[in-house]
Protein backbone atom coordinates (compact mmCIF):
# COMPACT_ATOMS: atom_id res chain seq x y z
CA UNK A 1 0.00 0.00 0.00
CA UNK A 2 1.17 3.48 -0.80
CA UNK A 3 -0.59 5.01 2.19
CA UNK A 4 -0.60 4.65 5.97
CA UNK A 5 -3.81 3.89 7.87
CA UNK A 6 -3.74 7.39 9.38
CA UNK A 7 -3.45 9.03 5.97
CA UNK A 8 -6.11 6.71 4.57
CA UNK A 9 -8.49 7.82 7.31
CA UNK A 10 -7.99 11.42 6.20
CA UNK A 11 -8.58 10.53 2.53
CA UNK A 12 -11.69 8.50 3.40
CA UNK A 13 -13.03 11.33 5.55
CA UNK A 14 -12.53 13.82 2.73
CA UNK A 15 -14.59 11.76 0.28
CA UNK A 16 -17.38 10.73 2.68
CA UNK A 17 -20.18 13.21 2.16
CA UNK A 18 -22.14 14.41 5.15
CA UNK A 19 -25.87 14.99 5.44
CA UNK A 20 -27.15 18.29 4.09
CA UNK A 21 -28.17 19.68 7.46
CA UNK A 22 -29.71 22.83 5.97
CA UNK A 23 -32.31 20.51 4.40
CA UNK A 24 -32.58 17.67 6.93
CA UNK A 25 -33.01 19.80 10.07
CA UNK A 26 -35.87 22.02 8.74
CA UNK A 27 -37.57 18.89 7.32
CA UNK A 28 -37.29 17.11 10.68
CA UNK A 29 -38.68 20.22 12.39
CA UNK A 30 -41.66 20.51 10.04
CA UNK A 31 -42.60 16.82 9.90
CA UNK A 32 -42.00 16.29 13.64
CA UNK A 33 -43.99 19.45 14.33
CA UNK A 34 -46.81 18.23 12.11
CA UNK A 35 -47.01 14.95 14.08
CA UNK A 36 -47.22 17.00 17.30
CA UNK A 37 -50.02 19.10 15.73
CA UNK A 38 -51.94 15.89 15.01
CA UNK A 39 -51.39 14.94 18.66
CA UNK A 40 -52.70 18.34 19.78
CA UNK A 41 -55.74 17.90 17.55
CA UNK A 42 -56.63 14.59 19.19
CA UNK A 43 -55.88 15.99 22.66
CA UNK A 44 -58.34 18.82 22.08
CA UNK A 45 -60.86 16.47 20.52
CA UNK A 46 -60.81 14.09 23.50
CA UNK A 47 -61.08 17.02 25.90
CA UNK A 48 -63.93 18.47 23.85
CA UNK A 49 -65.95 15.27 24.15
CA UNK A 50 -65.67 15.44 27.93
CA UNK A 51 -62.48 13.70 29.10
CA UNK A 52 -60.13 15.15 31.68
CA UNK A 53 -56.51 16.05 30.87
CA UNK A 54 -54.97 12.80 32.02
CA UNK A 55 -57.40 10.59 30.12
CA UNK A 56 -57.15 12.74 27.00
CA UNK A 57 -53.34 12.49 27.07
CA UNK A 58 -53.52 8.69 27.34
CA UNK A 59 -56.07 8.46 24.52
CA UNK A 60 -53.91 10.73 22.36
CA UNK A 61 -50.85 8.50 22.83
CA UNK A 62 -52.91 5.42 22.04
CA UNK A 63 -54.28 7.03 18.88
CA UNK A 64 -50.83 8.11 17.65
CA UNK A 65 -49.41 4.63 18.31
CA UNK A 66 -52.32 3.08 16.41
CA UNK A 67 -51.83 5.40 13.41
CA UNK A 68 -48.08 4.73 13.38
CA UNK A 69 -48.57 0.96 13.64
CA UNK A 70 -51.02 1.01 10.72
CA UNK A 71 -48.73 3.18 8.60
CA UNK A 72 -45.82 0.83 9.40
CA UNK A 73 -47.90 -2.18 8.36
CA UNK A 74 -48.78 -0.55 5.05
CA UNK A 75 -45.12 0.34 4.47
CA UNK A 76 -45.83 4.08 4.57
CA UNK A 77 -44.12 5.10 7.81
CA UNK A 78 -40.62 4.44 6.49
CA UNK A 79 -41.38 6.65 3.48
CA UNK A 80 -42.36 9.55 5.74
CA UNK A 81 -39.42 8.79 8.07
CA UNK A 82 -37.00 8.99 5.17
CA UNK A 83 -37.74 12.70 5.05
CA UNK A 84 -38.70 13.20 8.67
CA UNK A 85 -35.52 11.80 10.25
CA UNK A 86 -35.49 12.62 13.96
CA UNK A 87 -38.86 14.33 13.44
CA UNK A 88 -40.48 10.92 13.01
CA UNK A 89 -38.09 9.06 15.34
CA UNK A 90 -38.51 11.10 18.54
CA UNK A 91 -42.33 11.29 18.90
CA UNK A 92 -44.21 8.25 20.21
CA UNK A 93 -45.00 7.30 16.61
CA UNK A 94 -41.30 6.48 16.10
CA UNK A 95 -41.36 4.18 19.12
CA UNK A 96 -44.41 2.37 17.73
CA UNK A 97 -42.66 1.98 14.37
CA UNK A 98 -39.58 0.53 16.12
CA UNK A 99 -41.77 -2.13 17.78
CA UNK A 100 -44.14 -2.95 14.92
CA UNK A 101 -41.55 -3.17 12.13
CA UNK A 102 -39.48 -6.04 13.65
CA UNK A 103 -42.71 -7.73 14.80
CA UNK A 104 -43.83 -7.87 11.17
CA UNK A 105 -40.41 -8.52 9.68
CA UNK A 106 -39.59 -11.55 11.81
CA UNK A 107 -43.05 -13.10 11.55
CA UNK A 108 -41.51 -15.53 9.06
CA UNK A 109 -39.54 -17.15 11.92
CA UNK A 110 -42.77 -17.86 13.85
CA UNK A 111 -44.83 -16.04 16.48
CA UNK A 112 -42.62 -17.09 19.40
CA UNK A 113 -39.02 -17.06 18.15
CA UNK A 114 -39.71 -14.49 15.44
CA UNK A 115 -42.30 -11.87 16.37
CA UNK A 116 -42.14 -12.48 20.11
CA UNK A 117 -38.38 -12.61 20.48
CA UNK A 118 -37.50 -9.88 18.00
CA UNK A 119 -40.28 -7.35 18.70
CA UNK A 120 -38.12 -5.27 21.07
CA UNK A 121 -34.86 -5.69 19.22
CA UNK A 122 -34.77 -1.96 18.37
CA UNK A 123 -36.97 -0.48 21.10
CA UNK A 124 -35.51 -2.72 23.85
CA UNK A 125 -32.49 -0.51 24.65
CA UNK A 126 -34.79 2.55 24.90
CA UNK A 127 -36.94 0.75 27.49
CA UNK A 128 -33.94 -0.62 29.43
CA UNK A 129 -32.10 2.68 29.68
CA UNK A 130 -35.33 4.63 30.12
CA UNK A 131 -36.15 2.57 33.21
CA UNK A 132 -32.54 2.73 34.45
CA UNK A 133 -32.51 6.55 34.04
CA UNK A 134 -35.86 6.82 35.85
CA UNK A 135 -34.44 4.74 38.71
CA UNK A 136 -31.36 6.97 39.05
CA UNK A 137 -33.52 10.09 38.82
CA UNK A 138 -35.82 8.65 41.53
CA UNK A 139 -32.90 8.09 43.91
CA UNK A 140 -31.59 11.63 43.36
CA UNK A 141 -35.08 13.01 43.88
CA UNK A 142 -35.43 11.01 47.10
CA UNK A 143 -32.03 12.17 48.45
CA UNK A 144 -32.86 15.79 47.67
CA UNK A 145 -36.15 15.32 49.51
CA UNK A 146 -34.26 14.32 52.68
CA UNK A 147 -32.51 17.72 52.88
CA UNK A 148 -35.40 19.97 52.00
Amino acid at each position, binding site marked *: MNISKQEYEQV*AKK*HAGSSKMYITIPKAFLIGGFICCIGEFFMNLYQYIGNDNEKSAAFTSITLVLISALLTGFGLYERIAKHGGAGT*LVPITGFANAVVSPALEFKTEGYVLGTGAKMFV*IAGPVIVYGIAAAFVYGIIYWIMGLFS
Partner: protein
Amino acid sequence: MAKYVTDGTVELNGGVSVHSFAAAVGKMEGDGPLGDCFDYIAKGAELGEKTWEKAESKLQQYAFDIALSKGHLIKDDISFIFAGDLLNQCTGSAYGLRELNIPFIGLYGACSTMAESLAMASLFADGKIGEFCAAVTSSHFCSAERQFRFPINYGGVRTPTAQWTATASGCCIVGCAEQPPFVRKITIGKIVDMGVKDANNMGSAMAGAAYDSITRHLRNTGKAVTDFDAIYTGDLGQVGSDILHELFARDKVNIENIHKDCGLMLYDMEKQDVHAGGSGCGCSASVLCGHILPRIKSGELHNVLFAATGALMSTTIVQQGESIPGISHVIELSDKCI
Protein backbone atom coordinates in the same frame (compact mmCIF):
# COMPACT_ATOMS: atom_id res chain seq x y z
CA MET B 1 -2.23 -26.03 -17.00
CA ALA B 2 -2.43 -22.65 -15.34
CA LYS B 3 0.88 -20.99 -14.53
CA TYR B 4 1.53 -19.34 -11.20
CA VAL B 5 3.15 -15.97 -11.92
CA THR B 6 3.87 -14.46 -8.51
CA ASP B 7 2.20 -12.87 -5.50
CA GLY B 8 -1.27 -14.30 -6.08
CA THR B 9 -1.43 -13.95 -9.86
CA VAL B 10 -2.21 -16.95 -12.05
CA GLU B 11 -2.01 -17.04 -15.82
CA LEU B 12 -4.40 -19.42 -17.51
CA ASN B 13 -3.34 -21.64 -20.34
CA GLY B 14 -5.60 -19.99 -22.88
CA GLY B 15 -8.93 -21.14 -24.13
CA VAL B 16 -10.86 -20.84 -20.89
CA SER B 17 -14.03 -19.08 -21.90
CA VAL B 18 -17.24 -17.97 -20.25
CA HIS B 19 -19.40 -20.23 -22.39
CA SER B 20 -22.69 -18.68 -21.31
CA PHE B 21 -23.88 -16.19 -18.72
CA ALA B 22 -27.09 -14.75 -17.37
CA ALA B 23 -28.27 -12.04 -15.01
CA ALA B 24 -31.56 -12.04 -13.10
CA VAL B 25 -32.49 -8.88 -11.20
CA GLY B 26 -35.20 -7.22 -9.14
CA LYS B 27 -37.60 -4.51 -10.27
CA MET B 28 -35.55 -1.56 -9.09
CA GLU B 29 -32.44 -2.85 -10.88
CA GLY B 30 -34.57 -3.44 -13.98
CA ASP B 31 -35.68 0.20 -13.83
CA GLY B 32 -32.04 1.32 -13.69
CA PRO B 33 -29.85 2.41 -16.62
CA LEU B 34 -28.79 -1.20 -17.39
CA GLY B 35 -32.40 -2.48 -17.37
CA ASP B 36 -32.26 -3.61 -21.00
CA CYS B 37 -29.22 -5.84 -20.41
CA PHE B 38 -30.73 -8.32 -18.01
CA ASP B 39 -32.16 -11.71 -18.90
CA TYR B 40 -34.84 -11.68 -16.22
CA ILE B 41 -36.43 -8.82 -14.31
CA ALA B 42 -38.67 -9.71 -11.35
CA LYS B 43 -41.99 -7.90 -11.04
CA GLY B 44 -41.82 -7.65 -7.26
CA ALA B 45 -39.33 -8.18 -4.44
CA GLU B 46 -41.08 -11.38 -3.26
CA LEU B 47 -40.76 -13.35 -6.53
CA GLY B 48 -43.90 -15.18 -5.43
CA GLU B 49 -42.24 -16.54 -2.29
CA LYS B 50 -43.20 -16.21 1.37
CA THR B 51 -39.77 -15.20 2.69
CA TRP B 52 -37.02 -12.91 1.41
CA GLU B 53 -34.49 -15.74 1.70
CA LYS B 54 -36.57 -17.94 -0.59
CA ALA B 55 -36.92 -15.04 -3.01
CA GLU B 56 -33.14 -14.68 -3.18
CA SER B 57 -32.67 -18.41 -3.74
CA LYS B 58 -35.23 -18.29 -6.53
CA LEU B 59 -33.39 -15.43 -8.22
CA GLN B 60 -30.22 -17.51 -8.13
CA GLN B 61 -32.08 -20.48 -9.62
CA TYR B 62 -33.34 -18.29 -12.44
CA ALA B 63 -29.86 -16.99 -13.23
CA PHE B 64 -28.49 -20.54 -13.34
CA ASP B 65 -31.36 -21.91 -15.43
CA ILE B 66 -31.17 -19.07 -17.96
CA ALA B 67 -27.37 -19.35 -18.27
CA LEU B 68 -27.77 -23.07 -18.87
CA SER B 69 -30.40 -22.65 -21.58
CA LYS B 70 -28.50 -19.78 -23.25
CA GLY B 71 -25.49 -22.11 -23.49
CA HIS B 72 -27.67 -24.96 -24.86
CA LEU B 73 -26.59 -27.12 -21.94
CA ILE B 74 -28.40 -29.38 -19.53
CA LYS B 75 -27.59 -29.51 -15.83
CA ASP B 76 -25.74 -32.82 -16.17
CA ASP B 77 -23.17 -30.99 -18.32
CA ILE B 78 -22.05 -29.01 -15.25
CA SER B 79 -19.30 -30.80 -13.34
CA PHE B 80 -18.96 -28.39 -10.41
CA ILE B 81 -20.85 -25.39 -9.19
CA PHE B 82 -19.17 -22.61 -7.20
CA ALA B 83 -21.65 -20.38 -5.44
CA GLY B 84 -21.98 -17.95 -2.56
CA ASP B 85 -24.07 -15.11 -1.21
CA LEU B 86 -24.38 -12.78 1.78
CA LEU B 87 -26.79 -14.76 3.93
CA ASN B 88 -25.57 -16.54 7.05
CA GLN B 89 -23.93 -19.86 6.17
CA CYS B 90 -24.42 -19.09 2.44
CA THR B 91 -27.97 -20.40 2.54
CA GLY B 92 -29.10 -18.36 -0.47
CA SER B 93 -26.92 -20.62 -2.62
CA ALA B 94 -27.39 -23.89 -0.74
CA TYR B 95 -31.19 -23.66 -0.83
CA GLY B 96 -31.34 -22.14 -4.30
CA LEU B 97 -29.25 -24.91 -5.85
CA ARG B 98 -30.18 -27.88 -3.66
CA GLU B 99 -32.43 -29.52 -6.27
CA LEU B 100 -29.70 -29.57 -8.93
CA ASN B 101 -27.74 -32.62 -7.79
CA ILE B 102 -24.49 -31.05 -9.02
CA PRO B 103 -21.24 -31.21 -6.96
CA PHE B 104 -21.37 -27.93 -5.02
CA ILE B 105 -18.59 -25.80 -3.55
CA GLY B 106 -19.89 -22.97 -1.35
CA LEU B 107 -17.80 -19.80 -1.21
CA TYR B 108 -17.86 -16.66 0.85
CA GLY B 109 -16.17 -13.50 -0.35
CA ALA B 110 -18.93 -11.06 0.57
CA CYS B 111 -19.60 -8.81 -2.45
CA SER B 112 -16.45 -10.12 -4.17
CA THR B 113 -17.98 -13.59 -4.53
CA MET B 114 -18.65 -13.25 -8.28
CA ALA B 115 -14.94 -12.77 -8.99
CA GLU B 116 -14.01 -15.44 -6.45
CA SER B 117 -16.38 -18.05 -7.91
CA LEU B 118 -15.44 -17.14 -11.49
CA ALA B 119 -11.76 -17.49 -10.58
CA MET B 120 -12.29 -20.93 -9.07
CA ALA B 121 -14.50 -22.13 -11.94
CA SER B 122 -11.90 -20.89 -14.46
CA LEU B 123 -9.04 -22.63 -12.66
CA PHE B 124 -11.01 -25.90 -12.61
CA ALA B 125 -11.85 -25.51 -16.31
CA ASP B 126 -8.22 -24.71 -17.13
CA GLY B 127 -7.07 -27.83 -15.32
CA LYS B 128 -9.64 -29.82 -17.32
CA ILE B 129 -11.27 -30.81 -14.05
CA GLY B 130 -14.71 -31.41 -15.42
CA GLU B 131 -16.16 -30.07 -18.63
CA PHE B 132 -18.16 -27.07 -17.53
CA CYS B 133 -18.12 -25.31 -14.17
CA ALA B 134 -20.71 -22.79 -13.02
CA ALA B 135 -20.07 -19.68 -10.90
CA VAL B 136 -23.19 -18.25 -9.27
CA THR B 137 -23.87 -15.49 -6.74
CA SER B 138 -26.84 -13.50 -5.55
CA SER B 139 -27.98 -10.86 -3.11
CA HIS B 140 -31.41 -9.53 -2.16
CA PHE B 141 -32.05 -6.10 -0.67
CA CYS B 142 -34.65 -7.32 1.83
CA SER B 143 -32.82 -10.44 3.05
CA ALA B 144 -29.60 -8.43 3.49
CA GLU B 145 -31.38 -5.55 5.28
CA ARG B 146 -32.98 -7.83 7.88
CA GLN B 147 -29.70 -9.66 8.47
CA PHE B 148 -27.27 -6.74 8.52
CA ARG B 149 -29.36 -3.67 9.37
CA PHE B 150 -32.99 -3.09 10.28
CA PRO B 151 -36.43 -4.47 9.39
CA ILE B 152 -37.68 -3.21 6.01
CA ASN B 153 -40.49 -1.11 7.51
CA TYR B 154 -38.31 0.55 10.15
CA GLY B 155 -38.06 4.29 9.60
CA GLY B 156 -34.30 4.65 10.10
CA VAL B 157 -32.40 7.18 8.03
CA ARG B 158 -29.47 5.90 5.97
CA THR B 159 -26.24 7.86 5.98
CA PRO B 160 -24.97 9.42 2.70
CA THR B 161 -22.11 6.88 2.58
CA ALA B 162 -24.45 3.86 2.90
CA GLN B 163 -24.88 1.61 -0.13
CA TRP B 164 -27.96 -0.17 -1.44
CA THR B 165 -27.82 -3.99 -1.57
CA ALA B 166 -28.84 -5.03 -5.07
CA THR B 167 -31.57 -7.59 -5.64
CA ALA B 168 -29.73 -9.45 -8.32
CA SER B 169 -28.02 -12.64 -9.32
CA GLY B 170 -25.47 -13.60 -11.95
CA CYS B 171 -24.30 -16.91 -13.33
CA CYS B 172 -21.28 -17.71 -15.52
CA ILE B 173 -20.76 -21.15 -17.04
CA VAL B 174 -17.08 -21.63 -17.75
CA GLY B 175 -15.46 -24.20 -20.01
CA CYS B 176 -12.81 -24.60 -22.65
CA ALA B 177 -14.15 -23.10 -25.86
CA GLU B 178 -13.08 -21.01 -28.80
CA GLN B 179 -15.57 -18.23 -28.35
CA PRO B 180 -14.88 -15.11 -26.27
CA PRO B 181 -15.08 -13.83 -23.58
CA PHE B 182 -11.88 -15.52 -22.38
CA VAL B 183 -10.57 -15.57 -18.83
CA ARG B 184 -6.87 -14.79 -19.20
CA LYS B 185 -5.37 -14.06 -15.81
CA ILE B 186 -6.49 -14.04 -12.21
CA THR B 187 -5.13 -12.23 -9.18
CA ILE B 188 -6.45 -13.53 -5.89
CA GLY B 189 -7.11 -10.79 -3.37
CA LYS B 190 -5.38 -10.33 -0.04
CA ILE B 191 -7.25 -9.34 3.09
CA VAL B 192 -6.61 -5.61 3.35
CA ASP B 193 -7.73 -3.75 6.46
CA MET B 194 -7.50 0.03 6.25
CA GLY B 195 -8.90 0.54 9.74
CA VAL B 196 -12.40 1.67 8.67
CA LYS B 197 -14.94 0.88 11.39
CA ASP B 198 -18.14 2.33 9.94
CA ALA B 199 -20.41 -0.45 8.64
CA ASN B 200 -22.32 2.22 6.72
CA ASN B 201 -19.24 3.11 4.73
CA MET B 202 -18.27 -0.08 2.92
CA GLY B 203 -16.79 1.80 -0.03
CA SER B 204 -14.06 3.20 2.22
CA ALA B 205 -13.43 -0.21 3.76
CA MET B 206 -12.98 -1.87 0.35
CA ALA B 207 -11.17 0.78 -1.74
CA GLY B 208 -7.77 -0.15 -0.25
CA ALA B 209 -8.26 -3.80 -1.21
CA ALA B 210 -9.25 -2.85 -4.77
CA TYR B 211 -6.13 -0.66 -5.09
CA ASP B 212 -3.91 -3.44 -3.72
CA SER B 213 -5.26 -6.16 -6.03
CA ILE B 214 -5.38 -4.03 -9.20
CA THR B 215 -1.83 -2.66 -8.74
CA ARG B 216 -0.57 -6.16 -7.90
CA HIS B 217 -2.22 -7.54 -11.03
CA LEU B 218 -0.67 -4.82 -13.21
CA ARG B 219 2.76 -5.25 -11.64
CA ASN B 220 2.73 -9.06 -11.83
CA THR B 221 1.58 -9.11 -15.45
CA GLY B 222 3.75 -6.21 -16.62
CA LYS B 223 0.79 -4.23 -17.85
CA ALA B 224 -0.33 -0.64 -17.46
CA VAL B 225 -3.75 0.82 -16.83
CA THR B 226 -3.82 2.03 -20.45
CA ASP B 227 -3.62 -1.56 -21.75
CA PHE B 228 -7.25 -2.01 -20.77
CA ASP B 229 -10.46 -0.66 -22.25
CA ALA B 230 -12.01 -0.56 -18.81
CA ILE B 231 -11.32 -1.49 -15.21
CA TYR B 232 -14.51 -2.44 -13.41
CA THR B 233 -14.53 -2.53 -9.64
CA GLY B 234 -17.19 -4.53 -7.79
CA ASP B 235 -19.13 -2.09 -5.73
CA LEU B 236 -17.06 0.66 -4.21
CA GLY B 237 -19.86 3.15 -4.77
CA GLN B 238 -19.17 6.86 -5.03
CA VAL B 239 -17.10 7.17 -1.85
CA GLY B 240 -14.91 4.13 -2.54
CA SER B 241 -14.42 5.10 -6.19
CA ASP B 242 -13.24 8.58 -5.22
CA ILE B 243 -10.78 7.07 -2.73
CA LEU B 244 -9.51 4.59 -5.36
CA HIS B 245 -8.90 7.45 -7.82
CA GLU B 246 -6.95 9.31 -5.17
CA LEU B 247 -4.85 6.24 -4.28
CA PHE B 248 -3.89 5.82 -7.96
CA ALA B 249 -3.29 9.57 -8.30
CA ARG B 250 -0.68 9.27 -5.53
CA ASP B 251 1.18 6.90 -7.90
CA LYS B 252 0.70 9.49 -10.67
CA VAL B 253 -1.70 7.19 -12.50
CA ASN B 254 -5.00 8.58 -13.70
CA ILE B 255 -7.69 5.89 -13.84
CA GLU B 256 -10.73 8.17 -13.80
CA ASN B 257 -11.51 7.67 -17.49
CA ILE B 258 -10.92 3.92 -17.51
CA HIS B 259 -12.37 3.01 -14.13
CA LYS B 260 -16.04 2.14 -13.81
CA ASP B 261 -17.80 0.88 -10.71
CA CYS B 262 -20.62 -1.68 -10.90
CA GLY B 263 -22.27 -0.07 -7.87
CA LEU B 264 -22.52 3.24 -9.74
CA MET B 265 -23.63 1.64 -13.02
CA LEU B 266 -26.52 -0.47 -11.77
CA TYR B 267 -28.66 2.44 -10.58
CA ASP B 268 -29.52 5.91 -11.77
CA MET B 269 -27.64 7.89 -9.13
CA GLU B 270 -29.82 10.98 -9.67
CA LYS B 271 -33.27 9.42 -9.76
CA GLN B 272 -32.93 6.22 -7.72
CA ASP B 273 -32.36 6.81 -4.05
CA VAL B 274 -29.39 4.52 -3.40
CA HIS B 275 -27.13 7.02 -1.57
CA ALA B 276 -23.48 6.08 -2.36
CA GLY B 277 -24.42 3.37 -4.92
CA GLY B 278 -25.25 -0.32 -5.16
CA SER B 279 -23.61 -3.22 -3.33
CA GLY B 280 -24.12 -6.92 -2.64
CA CYS B 281 -22.84 -10.03 -4.44
CA GLY B 282 -25.52 -9.64 -7.08
CA CYS B 283 -24.47 -6.10 -7.96
CA SER B 284 -21.15 -6.89 -9.64
CA ALA B 285 -22.50 -10.30 -10.76
CA SER B 286 -25.41 -8.81 -12.69
CA VAL B 287 -23.30 -6.02 -14.20
CA LEU B 288 -20.69 -8.61 -15.26
CA CYS B 289 -23.22 -10.99 -16.78
CA GLY B 290 -25.60 -8.38 -18.17
CA HIS B 291 -23.25 -5.63 -19.33
CA ILE B 292 -19.53 -6.50 -19.39
CA LEU B 293 -19.43 -10.05 -20.80
CA PRO B 294 -21.85 -9.35 -23.70
CA ARG B 295 -19.65 -6.40 -24.73
CA ILE B 296 -16.50 -8.52 -24.75
CA LYS B 297 -18.34 -11.20 -26.70
CA SER B 298 -19.47 -8.70 -29.32
CA GLY B 299 -15.96 -7.24 -29.62
CA GLU B 300 -16.96 -3.82 -28.31
CA LEU B 301 -14.53 -4.30 -25.42
CA HIS B 302 -11.21 -6.08 -25.89
CA ASN B 303 -9.33 -6.21 -22.60
CA VAL B 304 -11.02 -5.66 -19.29
CA LEU B 305 -10.21 -6.03 -15.62
CA PHE B 306 -13.06 -7.11 -13.39
CA ALA B 307 -12.21 -6.50 -9.73
CA ALA B 308 -15.17 -7.37 -7.51
CA THR B 309 -14.72 -6.09 -3.97
CA GLY B 310 -16.02 -7.44 -0.68
CA ALA B 311 -16.12 -6.34 2.96
CA LEU B 312 -15.35 -9.34 5.15
CA MET B 313 -17.29 -8.28 8.23
CA SER B 314 -20.17 -9.48 10.35
CA THR B 315 -22.49 -7.32 12.42
CA THR B 316 -21.27 -9.04 15.60
CA ILE B 317 -17.60 -8.26 14.96
CA VAL B 318 -18.30 -4.64 13.99
CA GLN B 319 -20.37 -4.16 17.17
CA GLN B 320 -17.36 -5.45 19.11
CA GLY B 321 -15.41 -2.49 17.72
CA GLU B 322 -13.27 -4.27 15.12
CA SER B 323 -12.38 -2.59 11.84
CA ILE B 324 -13.65 -3.94 8.51
CA PRO B 325 -11.23 -5.89 6.28
CA GLY B 326 -11.78 -5.73 2.53
CA ILE B 327 -10.87 -8.06 -0.31
CA SER B 328 -10.81 -7.78 -4.07
CA HIS B 329 -10.16 -10.50 -6.63
CA VAL B 330 -9.14 -9.45 -10.13
CA ILE B 331 -10.14 -11.29 -13.30
CA GLU B 332 -8.59 -10.28 -16.60
CA LEU B 333 -11.06 -10.86 -19.41
CA SER B 334 -10.35 -10.56 -23.10
CA ASP B 335 -11.90 -11.16 -26.50
CA LYS B 336 -8.69 -12.91 -27.54
CA CYS B 337 -7.61 -16.35 -26.45
CA ILE B 338 -3.89 -15.54 -26.00
